[in-house]
């Protein structure tokens, strides 16, 4: 397990995001350690996805900084952050609909997988197929993305994120709306990814999953951090319970 003395992989400092008069994130600061399994919870509208958008670069933030592996990436465009090793899945899957599953992954391998730049096309295809196999999607490789089921779409989201060879993977409610066996499938996937030294931030509403998965959990409410600590600490926290019951 990651020792506390290691330098943080991701540091978010004083991150603030406003939309007109509405403050979605208010002075959020947190450090994610390498190899950590980090859970992010909070009621709807608390700013979880906004935080992810700020980390991945979809949103600009003022003020506040985002530091990844000791580099200030606050001004970097999203695709540069992806190349640096930050990958994210979307809450509502965003597949490339005109492509097959394998083509979806090839985009990631062609554009984001910096370590693979010397790899030839056949080598990239092999990498792609091995990722698909690991995700359980190998049989769907040549199927159009429009023909996938919900859980297959979620898996492809994660597979595509994985194909960018990330150091940090952010999974945004990948389990929402799935059956309990499907939830287990996705959870096992994330666990196995975590065991390969990939730092994972998981946003979820399904509490058992968060409890099982996370080393640490952070709870947001109305754009602010109201609790951060081990899963049991956070779950027992008074304010966290109020935040959830209050919604």
């Amino acid at each position: 397990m990651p020792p506390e003395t290691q330098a943080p992989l991701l540091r978010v400092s004083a991150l603030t995001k406003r939309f007109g008069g509405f403050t979605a994130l208010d002075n959020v600061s947190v450090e994610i350690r390498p190899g950590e399994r980090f859970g992010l919870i909070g009621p709807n509208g608390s700013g979880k996805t906004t935080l992810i958008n700020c980390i991945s670069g979809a949103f600009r933030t003022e003020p506040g900084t985002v530091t990844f592996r000791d580099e200030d990436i606050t001004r970097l465009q999203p695709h540069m952050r992806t190349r640096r090793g930050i990958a994210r899945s979307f809450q509502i899957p965003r597949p490339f609909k005109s492509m097959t599953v394998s083509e979806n992954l090839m985009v990631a391998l062609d554009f984001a997988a910096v370590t693979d730049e010397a790899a030839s096309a056949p080598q990239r295809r092999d990498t792609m197929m091995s990722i698909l196999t690991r995700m359980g999607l190998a049989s769907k490789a040549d199927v159009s993305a429009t023909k996938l089921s919900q859980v297959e779409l979620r898996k492809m989201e994660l597979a595509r994120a994985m194909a960018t060879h990330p150091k940090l993977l952010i999974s945004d409610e990948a389990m929402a709306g799935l059956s309990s066996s499907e939830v287990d499938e996705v959870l096992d996937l994330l666990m196995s990814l975590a065991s390969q030294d990939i730092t994972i931030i998981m946003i979820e509403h399904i509490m058992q999953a968060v409890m099982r998965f996370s080393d640490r959990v952070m709870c947001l409410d109305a754009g602010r951090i109201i609790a951060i600590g081990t899963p049991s600490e956070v779950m027992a926290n008074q304010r966290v319970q109020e935040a959830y019951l209050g919604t």
Partner: protein
Amino acid sequence: MNRNGILFWVGAILFLVAALLMTQVIGNEYPFFACYVILQFIVLAVAWSILGGYAGYVNFGTSAFFGVGVYTAVFLFKAFGAPLAVQIAAAAAIGAFLGFALGLLTLRMQGIYFSIATIALTIIIETSVTNWRFVGGASGIQMQRPPVMSPFNSYVQMLFFVQALLVVVAVAMARYIQGSWVGRGLQALKDDELAAECTGVPTLRLKLLACVISGALMCAAGAPAAMYLQYADPSSAFNLNYSVSALAMSLIGGTAHWAGPVIGAILLGTTQQLLTVTISSEVNVLVLGVMLVLFVVGAPEGIIGLIRRVRRNRNDGEG
């Protein structure tokens, strides 16, 4: 080069040779007038499809680029007596610059906002040129053709061949983009720009590239038109019909493959020539509009898509 590449270039060379032969063998000028227009539309449609088809950014400003090409040629010829090659090269350069400016200005706009911005640009440019006395202002300007060089017998024949060259250039570029990482990146950003960006695709850079290439080709296609008509005026050089035509020809032909705009331009260009001559130019535009709407509603992947569907059905039937 692989087999497809060799086939393509052989075909391109044959096409150019045929065009050249035509100029030597056929004496009557009319076929060249008609074919010139069709070739011009092929260039415009292919150029449009690079931004509109591959990247999914619907540019209504084809007329603007075309008109700028016309007036670049007019200006250079009036001011410096520049030869045709220089006119075209300069037009391409200005088109590239204009495309770049358009891309930068609209870099954060998506969907319809980009499209409206292109209309805005067209009207602003047209208004500016209308107020420019040196190139004739609103009333237009006459152009005197310089003597034609051998091996051509008439200036129109030479323009026809020049346009054939531009077709090859445009198609070669579109073909290259389609098969390369640029094309794949554009396809991803067309499907979902945010997801593409987060998957590592440098969307802004690719969009700008598409704008630059598309703009350069459109402007280059417009440059010879000044000499072709021997006349230029803002309302015809910037005529919105160019925008509608390029768009319609590409969408009807099918934007997934570079052959789509070519097919669309040949089909609709020929129809246009026939209708304008036999009935009226208004009916011609009406037919264009109706076909655009019909295809967009009923056959969204265009003629290319229909061909593919027929092929797939045949394969499924045999399999």
